[in-house]
């Protein structure tokens, strides 16, 4: 995948067999959306890559946080002259990964001067409110519940294109407005701090979190009422790209019922 300018951790036989090698990618153009996808699961990488390509994104898929940092040039101290050319518009990462979790990767990206502006989306199979909170607080743009569907990616795509120039400071303000009570949530009885040391276990806190604030409210846009919001979005929707009603509530509903899913 040298043409994408980065590391793709598919074996070349896999790449050919899923048609990824067959897709002749032209050189990266300035107006093309380039997404860095990070997931340790091969199956999930293939799926997310396809989801993104089908929504007209260029994709670089890597299998770990370390590879992601390596791709971004953040794995060593010296700044690379290459970085001026490296254009990444979105980073989408799994939360539970061995070695470096998606949360840790998020932190490193937000700490870097070159990439802190890049929106980072976290994916997780577990609907854990404290996890979602923590990621949002650290600057994540959005949180997707796995399995990821086409509607989720389309939604990401829509706010990405209209919003690529929006500064990070403004985004945080909007998120803060829509999360009025997150700091006052009671700590879960089984401390979430144990979660990061056991990234791959099904955390018991999923049954513990009985939040006073529904996750639907966390993602409410400040322009709409928190609970019955049908087409809410992390950022205020623009007319041409607001998600259809059957897309957002399904995902939001899922997030609103911790413990229902797994």
């Amino acid at each position, binding site marked *: 995948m040298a043409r994408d300018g980065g590391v793709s951790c598919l074996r070349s036989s*896999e790449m050919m067999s899923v048609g990824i090698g067959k897709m002749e990618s032209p050189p990266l153009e300035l107006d093309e959306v380039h997404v860095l996808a990070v997931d340790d699961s091969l*199956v999930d990488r293939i799926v997310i890559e396809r989801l993104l390509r089908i929504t007209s994104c260029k994709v670089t898929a890597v299998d770990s946080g370390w590879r992601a940092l390596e791709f971004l040039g953040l794995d060593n101290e010296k700044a690379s002259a290459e970085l001026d050319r490296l254009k990444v518009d979105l980073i989408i990462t799994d939360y539970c990964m061995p070695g470096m979790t998606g949360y840790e990767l998020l932190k490193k990206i937000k700490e870097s001067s070159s990439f802190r502006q890049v929106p980072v989306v976290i994916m997780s199979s577990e609907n854990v409110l404290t996890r979602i909170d923590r990621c949002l607080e650290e600057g994540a743009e959005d949180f997707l519940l796995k399995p990821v569907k086409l509607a989720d990616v389309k939604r990401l795509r829509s706010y990405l294109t209209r919003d690529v120039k929006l500064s990070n400071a403004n985004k945080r303000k909007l998120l803060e407005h829509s999360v009025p009570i997150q700091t006052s949530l009671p700590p879960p009885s089984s401390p979430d701090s144990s979660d990061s040391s056991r990234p791959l276990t099904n955390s018991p806190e999923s049954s513990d979190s009985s939040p006073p604030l529904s996750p639907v409210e966390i993602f409410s846009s400040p322009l709409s009422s928190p609970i019955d919001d049908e087409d809410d979005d992390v950022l205020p929707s623009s007319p041409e790209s607001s998600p259809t009603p059957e897309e957002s509530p399904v995902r939001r509903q899922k997030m609103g019922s911790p413990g229902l899913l797994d």
Partner: protein
Amino acid sequence: MDTLVAQLQRQFRDYTISLYHQGFLDDQFTELKKLQDECSPDFVAEVVSLFFEDCEKLIGNMARALDQTGNVDFNLVGSSVHQLKGSSSSVGAKRVKGLCITFKECCDSQNFEGCVRCLQQVDIEYKSLKAKLQDLFNLEQQIVQAGGRIPQVDI
């Protein structure tokens, strides 16, 4: 009088519906089908093929871990189960995913017999799904070879 294509299409439709109704597949499988098109006509077949390879590998890991009599690392088993649950969820393998949930509980409670049982069931289940999907893909091929189009099946 039904043409061959019409017969095959009906078989395909009925078989697909039965897979969903019997709980082998869920709507995530439908999502995968949305990602298939003329440019990637075999996308679903290829993803599920990778999934089944994943099953084999992970089940092997679990079996090895459970084989360490007296010294079973349930965290290790649990981590493989977690991965399997993730990928089964991503392809819509509903029964496999369901078994992984039970399996995970056995790992968390360090229930050795439970784990062994779950391992056997997961092994049977993924192989069963593999055979059924192979039948489904064969039907698709037959339809195409007979000059027909694969029908869109609304579940």
